[in-house]
């Protein structure tokens, strides 16, 4: 069941060519939505102005190799493993949703364009959808700040939920349609996916493009020493730091010990 391509049975109703046109149209919608979003919010302008400001405040020049290293570490840490989340639950939920969504989209494209009847790709499609559902519903019912911290009921919708709701509807009804069949479930699945991919301008879909850019820029500001005007804590056992700030060795010793988690020992949840 889970290794059979659910789109094969649809061939009587919708031709493979129509399905391919739909997938291409959704890709165009995401690309266009992202470009309009960048122009509308002036985010590219904001980033370039910030980068210029950081360059003026730079203490040293960053070499091409270091920039490449920063780009690679942005991809391996922030992009692939969502390392920017301080809260481990949010990170886990985000990883499940993101990787599930990538699996779901890639396997959909392979199944529709490759004419796969059965095998590993339909299985990956189901696993991807399930992973989005687990990570997404975990977020929706427990982690989302409105529910977790503000005490709002889970069914209260605001515009910020456009992305997560349409994403969850897409994968939930994709799974239901694949298991139960029926044109109604398929129609809801397609409606939700169309909303998901055509509302980039109004939803937070575009975060997958600007978040890595912000993470990369943050790394560059650390490398060039401007660090957004933040102070440098450094390694406290470094003799040059101890010579510069004599309070450190005087009160904390020459190799200061680990002082505990501090504020991080408790997740923020009572506001």
């Amino acid at each position, binding site marked *: 069941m889970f290794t059979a391509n659910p789109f094969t049975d649809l061939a009587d109703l919708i031709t493979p060519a129509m399905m391919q046109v739909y997938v291409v149209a959704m890709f165009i919608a995401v690309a266009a939505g992202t470009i309009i979003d960048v122009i509308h919010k002036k985010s590219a302008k*904001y980033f370039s102005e910030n980068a210029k400001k950081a360059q*003026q*405040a730079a203490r040293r020049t960053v070499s091409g190799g270091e920039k490449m290293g920063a780009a690679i570490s942005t991809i391996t840490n922030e992009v692939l493993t969502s390392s*920017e*989340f*301080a*809260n481990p639950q*949010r990170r886990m939920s985000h990883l499940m949703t993101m990787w599930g969504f990538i699996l779901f989209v890639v396997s959909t494209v392979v199944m529709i364009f490759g004419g796969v009847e059965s095998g590993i790709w339909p299985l990956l499609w189901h696993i991807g959808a399930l992973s989005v559902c687990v990570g997404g519903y975990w977020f929706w019912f427990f982690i989302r*700040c*409105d529910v977790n*911290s*503000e005490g709002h009921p889970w069914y209260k919708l*605001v*515009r*910020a939920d456009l992305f997560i709701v349409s994403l969850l509807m897409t994968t939930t009804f994709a799974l239901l349609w694949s298991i139960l069949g029926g044109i109604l479930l398929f129609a809801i699945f397609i409606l939700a996916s169309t909303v998901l991919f055509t509302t980039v301008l109004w939803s937070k879909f575009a975060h997958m493009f*600007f978040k890595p850019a*912000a993470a990369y820029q*943050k790394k560059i500001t650390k490398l060039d020493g401007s660090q*957004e*005007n*933040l*102070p*440098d*804590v*450094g390694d*406290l056992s470094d003799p040059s*730091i101890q010579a*510069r*700030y004599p*309070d*450190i060795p*005087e*009160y*904390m010793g020459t190799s*200061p*010990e*680990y*002082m*505990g*988690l*501090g*504020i*991080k020992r408790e997740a*923020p*949840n*009572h*506001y």
Partner: protein
Amino acid sequence: MPTFVYMTRCDGCGHCVDICPSDIMHIDPTLRRAYNIEPNMCWECYSCVKACPHNAIDVRGYADFAPLGHSVRVIRDEEKGVIAWRIKSRNGETDLNLLAPITTKPWGKFIPQLKDVSGPTQEMRNSQLLYNEPKYIRMDDGDIHTLASNGLEMKEGVYY
């Protein structure tokens, strides 16, 4: 000047909301990012600035210790037990870095037991110093006070 949030840095974790003594740092219901709901009521205690794990909150310091256009930023690194400040002037000529151990004491400890303290003498009443001025900040007897000269020492663990 009250606190403000860099939206591209904030991830909506809620540490600032938790710690704000005036309860004016909230999570925006549309963007799910922190913001100061009532800047008039912010008294720039820097609690949220220090609590933010992404250094996404900033405050413009008062013009009486740095001219307009400056930047005053802080990192409170509790795991290392230190607090670092950087004050930078608008033209970048002044770029002051400070680093010091955190000396905040645990909440509810070291409460002054005033009933055990003897009342002020007439000499104290006439003095410009406050009655029961903490001895650690009294500059009229001896040299500048340090932790060591007052018999204090850094303890493991930092508190807020």
